[in-house]
């Protein structure tokens, strides 16, 4: 692959991973997309309502390098709460292997080749084939007229066919905890979203998420985001906000504050 293409792949990966979990409109809730409706964003997965009970989603661009698919299934309501489960399958090996390189031969950064996210050190063995399965439950309830509350919790499992060297971790916010499942074998996530209608067209989404890697040296990650959502209509909206991350990394703990931006489109049949 040419350097330019590699750079694009890496940038896309980092952008997509950084926005991952930034699901709203319908996907951050237990609500299922109506049959025939499609939604997608610049950085959001493509979501499709297959029936009134089943919604599929996939990151179309990422799937070339990191095949992924997710299905959300609606279950009967109880106590006024909408209830759904989401099940995701991810195969990150091709992308991680592609990110493992010295650089692109472009020496603009401190006179070193730029682009090697994972080290090509000869003592690090090949990244094995790995698959993770994430199972998540979502509960959504409308509070008053203007607020929607969603609670979620899930557990992920990963299997791999060889040793994954601990030096291959990408010690960056958002990325590190999401790849943690492949090093730890399993991960737990808990979270809550609060979506408020501020004006006719403006919403504010506030959420908290925790990712736990029980048994690992780096157990805890906390993420919070605030997003202003400008809805032109049900088929287009703009999302601008921030993401605050506090997490444990191999070097210790650290805070990060990151900008978020996305455009989303919807198509209903």
């Amino acid at each position, binding site marked *: 692959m040419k350097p330019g293409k590699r750079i694009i792949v890496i940038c896309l990966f980092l952008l997509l991973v950084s926005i991952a979990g930034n699901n709203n409109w319908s996907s951050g809730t237990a609500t299922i997309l109506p049959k025939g409706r499609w939604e997608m964003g610049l950085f959001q997965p493509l979501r499709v309502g297959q029936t009134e009970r089943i919604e599929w989603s996939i990151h179309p661009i990422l799937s070339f390098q990191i095949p992924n698919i997710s299905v959300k299934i609606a279950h009967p309501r109880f106590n006024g709460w909408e209830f759904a489960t989401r099940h995701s399958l991810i195969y990150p090996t091709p992308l991680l292997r592609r990110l493992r390189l010295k650089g692109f031969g472009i020496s603009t950064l401190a006179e070193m080749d730029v682009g090697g996210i994972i*080290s090509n050190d000869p003592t690090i063995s090949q990244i094995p084939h790995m698959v993770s399965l994430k199972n998540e439950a979502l509960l959504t309830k409308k509070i008053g007229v203007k607020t929607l509350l969603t609670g979620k919790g899930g557990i992920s499992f990963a299997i791999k066919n060889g040793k994954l060297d601990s030096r291959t971790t990408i010690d*960056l916010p958002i990325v590190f905890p999401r790849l943690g499942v492949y090093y730890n074998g399993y991960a737990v996530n808990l979270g809550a979203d609060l979506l408020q209608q501020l004006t006719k067209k403006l919403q504010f989404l506030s959420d908290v998420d925790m990712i736990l890697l029980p048994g690992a040296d780096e157990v805890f990650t906390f993420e919070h985001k605030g997003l202003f959502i400008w809805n032109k209509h*049900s088929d287009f909206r703009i999302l601008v906000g921030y993401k605050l991350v506090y997490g444990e990394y191999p070097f210790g703990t650290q805070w990060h504050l990151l900008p978020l931006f996305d455009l989303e489109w919807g198509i209903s049949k």
Partner: protein
Amino acid sequence: MNDNHSNPELIYRPRWIVPIIRDAIKNYPIIVLKDIRNFKNAMRIFTFTALCLFSFTFFSSCDPLVTTFEDVEDAVMYKAASITEPGVVPPEGFDVIKVMTWNIRFGAARIPWYIDSCGDRVLLTKKEVMTGLEGLAEKIKQVNPDILLLQEVDVESKRTAYVDEVQWLLDHTDMNYGAFASMHQIQFIPSDGMGRIDQGNAILSRWKILETERIQLPLRGDQSALTQYFWVRRNILKVKINIPLSLPRDFYVVNIHAAAFSTDDTKRQQIDKFIEILDELDDNGAYYVAGGDLNEIPPSSDSTNFCDEDRCPEDADDFCRDGSDFYAETDWLNDLYNGYTIHPAVPWSEYLEDNSPHFTHSVVTTGYSWNRKLDYLFSNSEWVAGSHITHQDAFDLSDHAPISATLNIDQPIP
């Protein structure tokens, strides 16, 4: 809210995604202007949130991608997990202090690292780092210095398994207190998976460190602004030490690691700054011991060109790596050797008599072949005659040999 899907008015006929995107981008400013009331509200909320976020960011511990430094700022202080007794205070009238300087190559020993030794290694395993540090600690304990100047020490780097080497060396030698001044602190270097790095100079001492200063040295002038931003920020680490002797003056330790690969006069500016600090201390009537890795050979050295020695197998026969040819720099250390108050631990006359026993560096990964002197110790007090040792036996522990010497601070300042 999300019940829009059930509203028949809002169900649109299928359209191609590309025109939708084009329309959305094209119409966005019009949307804002049309709905000016909502826009104002949104802006108010956004401004308030932005202010809150700015305040939070300001007071939170979010770190920049690359850490830059003030001209002068405090260094990071360390203390050993358990304090070792400083030992018997030398008898009155014979106040000697043993000093050692060592560029420890971040504990990588002679592993062929990819930047400086024609190698392909990037990230050491924790076991490799521990083996390297254990070798360093053993040598330090054998030399048994009172004050130790270290260069190329990692404290939070992925390449060294995030081991805090200052703390580790304090905890595994008889040194008690430490100070660290970072010269390269970056959250993530996207080059061959280097990731996070924090390396710099350190001073370890048996006795309490009272004051610290990290003095920024000039940045390389032969690089683009972008490269310079990500490049190492070399510094001088100056500390004041509380020596339990009845000294009439303050005692300072000054540690430098000068530029290695600059092709302009950056290194000369850095060395001049080093000399300026030593002169200032002397003018203020303080005792000092100074040293480190100057990346410069002494004046009148027998050999000034190391292009052949430093060339990697893949290089062309006439290729010379940056930092290998000292021909134009042979007088840059003159002021350190001709000064009236600055005394080198290794006397110049002794070095000129035979260079090779005083060599402290080589980049080759095999064979015992030190080939140049880059490391130094100086003081404005007298060194105990014949006390200096260039520990060339430590070849396997780093690409630099340590130097130790004993300082007699009982001698009056001329």
